[in-house]
């Protein structure tokens, strides 16, 4: 039987990118900002969100989509700090969230009554960098109990993010972490990065972080859809 060659030339990420574009246009139509929080496991994403929800509800109308490989523990923790929707996405083994999961989760969110959607990605500094979720920005949470060279080890994540939150700053006196060096490494990968230094325990730096969130919400609302 003759063999026929078929040119395909289709990107593997094309389907995800298509769905991410749908997420982006749905959010834009309602003037909603979405922030994709990425980090290694245990860096304090959930704690930062707890503080954020407690402080900014009801000033900002926030929804959370929280991804984990197993358990809905984080979503349950977050739900205690808000009356608004906190959605758990259990990936069942997958190491990242994809745009289809976000699109499905958004069906449950009243976007006309929402300013800001947080996507708490699966704790993993590798895979989530490859999956566009339709977010306005990726934000890396980088805790001071990690090594300063995380940005050099996981460059793709830092390259694709806009903001770095140096978390657990209350522990700085007790750990050998050098924040200046960490920022220098991160800037070497992505010179445009913006930094916040926070502690969800002491509250240090949280006002600046909240200010940034208010700014994003303002910018998104005024941006023509």
């Amino acid at each position, binding site marked *: *039987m003759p*063999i*026929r060659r078929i040119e*395909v*030339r*289709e990107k*593997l990420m094309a*389907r995800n990118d298509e769905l991410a574009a749908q997420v982006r246009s749905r959010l834009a139509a309602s003037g909603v900002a979405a922030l994709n929080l990425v980090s290694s496991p245990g860096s304090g994403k959930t704690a930062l969100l707890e503080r954020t929800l407690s402080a900014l509800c009801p000033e900002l109308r926030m929804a959370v989509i929280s991804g984990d490989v197993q358990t809905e523990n984080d979503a349950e923790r977050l739900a205690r700090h808000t009356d608004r929707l906190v959605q758990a996405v259990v990936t069942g083994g997958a190491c990242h969230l994809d745009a289809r999961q976000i699109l499905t989760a958004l069906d449950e969110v009243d976007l006309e009554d929402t300013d800001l959607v947080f996507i708490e990605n699966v704790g993993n500094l590798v895979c989530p960098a490859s999956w566009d979720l339709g977010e306005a920005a990726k934000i890396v949470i980088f805790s001071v109990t990690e090594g300063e060279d995380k940005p050099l080890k996981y460059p*793709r994540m830092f390259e694709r993010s806009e903001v770095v939150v140096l978390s657990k700053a209350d522990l700085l006196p007790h750990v050998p972490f050098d924040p200046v060096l960490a920022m220098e490494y991160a800037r070497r990968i992505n010179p445009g990065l913006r930094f916040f230094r926070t502690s969800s325990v002491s509250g240090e730096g949280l006002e600046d972080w909240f200010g940034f969130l208010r700014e994003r919400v303002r910018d998104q609302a005024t941006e023509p859809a």
Partner: protein
Amino acid sequence: VHELSLAMGACRIVEDTVGSDRLGRVRTVGVVVGAHSGVEIESFRFCMETLLAQPPFEAAALELEHTGGDELRVDYLEVEDADSED
């Protein structure tokens, strides 16, 4: 670590291209993997070869082409052409 889902995505592209009833006629799947695509090539190869070796495929071969960029795409297919008159 998401090589299996990427491999499944590649197989879905093949299916969308030839139709689900003709997967048994696929002889070669050509995939381009860039060095900066974030894909662990050996793991991806293993996942692809595993999927291509079982039904509805019938021993389709994988041809990986390595490039220096960040592309990751199904480039071409070679399919037994039952519709051809030759």
